[in-house]
């Protein structure tokens, strides 16, 4: 137990350190940005600029602003959006996080379930037609960028066939189908490939032979002993999978005009909206760091072998 406390403590410390470094890096990078964050900046006079700078505190020395910003972030205050009529960034992102999370969860769930299923099928038919098919599918999924898939899906199912909405977030579940499909390509390919490799190794192990000698059927072996052992390490790739989903959502949300974090981020990038960019970066980093942390913990809880090593 004591070891656990220490382990979690160390991990939390490094998570905080990571976030601190990222926050600082983002802050200084943003302040090195050329141009100003204001609308119609070309038409502003120097006097107007000075007034705006004073209003947003950009006239203070850099270090002073840095310390202020860090303090504010700790209190959950991420500043105000310079583009959206001084709305607090926290509120702005709060409204937009829902669709992003919903899409992300749907994509991970759908993608992994299908991917795992295909991976098991492939491993059971190692080096035969079905395996080649599944592997080819997985490798295609990894090779075709999700924004290309998104555009393709939009073109086929929304523009040409008109079965599903072309974008936006106003038709409930129907609006989520195409973006979810586009985003799920990556977790699908990733988990299919991962499970196949794991399962091929597992299925050739002695305990599977023993299960066969017990008189179990191949399918039952694959889905009980095989999948048990193959699924546990899949947890370790959940972290990277989340990252690829986040990056995917940056563009996919844009393509389908979904009011999520990613779409907000691209908008902010193109308009130098400092505080929003910083807040999204910190949010993404926090998400990533905690997903990695949680999967590590989960892995140790679930795998009895690791669990015991931890206790020693």
């Amino acid at each position: 137990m004591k070891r656990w406390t220490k382990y979690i403590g160390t991990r939390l410390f490094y998570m905080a350190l990571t976030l601190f470094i990222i926050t600082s890096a983002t802050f200084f990078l943003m302040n090195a940005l050329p141009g100003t964050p204001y609308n119609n900046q070309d038409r502003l006079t120097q006097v107007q600029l000075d007034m705006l700078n004073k209003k947003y505190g950009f006239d203070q020395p850099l270090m002073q602003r840095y310390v202020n910003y860090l303090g504010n972030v700790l209190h959950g205050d991420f500043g105000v959006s310079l583009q959206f009529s001084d709305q607090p960034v926290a509120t702005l992102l709060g409204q937009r996080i829902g669709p992003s999370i919903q899409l992300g969860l749907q994509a991970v769930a759908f993608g992994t379930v299908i991917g795992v299923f295909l991976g098991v099928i492939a491993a059971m038919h190692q080096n035969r037609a079905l395996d080649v098919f599944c592997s080819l599918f997985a490798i295609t999924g990894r090779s075709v960028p999700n924004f290309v898939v998104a555009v393709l899906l939009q073109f086929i199912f929304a523009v040409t066939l008109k079965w599903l909405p072309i974008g936006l977030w106003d038709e409930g579940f129907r609006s989520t189908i195409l973006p979810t499909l586009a985003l799920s390509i990556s977790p699908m390919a990733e988990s299919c490939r991962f499970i196949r490799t794991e399962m091929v190794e597992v299925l050739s192990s002695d305990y599977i032979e023993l299960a066969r000698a017990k008189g179990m059927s191949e399918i039952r072996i694959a889905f009980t002993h095989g999948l048990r052992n193959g699924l546990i390490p899949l947890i370790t790739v959940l972290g990277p999978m989340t990252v690829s989903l986040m990056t995917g959502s940056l563009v996919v949300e844009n393509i389908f005009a979904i009011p999520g974090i990613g779409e907000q981020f691209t908008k902010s990038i193109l308009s130098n909206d400092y505080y929003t960019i910083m807040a999204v970066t910190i949010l993404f980093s926090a998400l990533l760091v905690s997903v990695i942390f949680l999967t590590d913990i989960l892995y140790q809880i679930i795998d009895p072998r690791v669990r015991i090593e931890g206790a020693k």
Partner: protein
Amino acid sequence: MEPILQVNHLSVSFDTYAGKVEAVRDISFNLQPGETLALVGESGCGKSVTCRTIMRLLARNANIDQGSVLFRGDDLLKKSNREMRAIRGGKIAMIFQDPMTSLDPTMQIGRQIAEAVTLHSRVSRRDAKKRAVQLLHQVGIENPEKRYRQYPHEFSGGQRQRIVIAIALAANPDILIADEPTTALDVTMQAQILDLIKEIQKATGTSVIFITHDLGVVANVADRVAVMYAGRIIEIGTADEVFYDPRHPYTWGLLASMPTLATDSETLYAIPGTPPTLIHPAPGDAFAPRNAYALEADRIADPPLFPVSATHLAATWLLDPRAPQVQPPESIRLRAEEYRQKQSAKGASL
């Protein structure tokens, strides 16, 4: 007595990139109810393949070229996969070589035993668990109730092999195939596991096929011994016959290379050369190139199994009446001598 298992003229080959490997070539043997038959030979001689053929657990590139495996008169090689699953673990159970990897590392060992129980009989979960605990007790795991819920890594190698044995016993099989069950264990563990297998056999009356490359292990457990070389049985007989009156030069070599208390270690014998590859084996006796007693006849044809006694057969041309008389190595003669004295002493005491 009707044999429980009859293997007739079985040949098994594997397709590999290098060519067709003839792993088992025309072997036949019987197994009587309640007896222990040991299959002995160097690695790669086909003993494991034979057992996997009986269990129908061969890899996908294996072909059964000829022969039959009759279990209580039914040919196992003609059974459907579904029928075979009922026999595997139910009627014929198997123990594997490496207990460290034979158990699912992510499943409680009790559940792995209970799984084997429920696969072959309609019992409730609770009864399956009860049976699993009882099996754990039977194979000598202490505190079975508690250990039921533990994972394989919480057990030592010897204990794990006991658990594997418990799994094999789950459905009261008629035949237990033990594929080198002690090879991966240290010497004290080996003895314990051998004792356990003997004990179980006494209690349940199962037949055992015991695969090993170690004649020393065989001496303790086997009723009959079949010596295999390059995919063939080259000598088969009762344990006494094979140990004390061996007729095949390969068996001589095996016995001579077995250290006993009497041999001084400097003269420990080793069979020269290495086993042949079984890809397109040349005609004639596969052992001939390593055989100091080889005859020209070995080059022409593979020797048949000549009967030595009603229970003892050996495949060497030396047993042909036309063959020259040869003397087996000294240690083998000494053994035979010792044995005869013991027998006559026994006879005298009776």
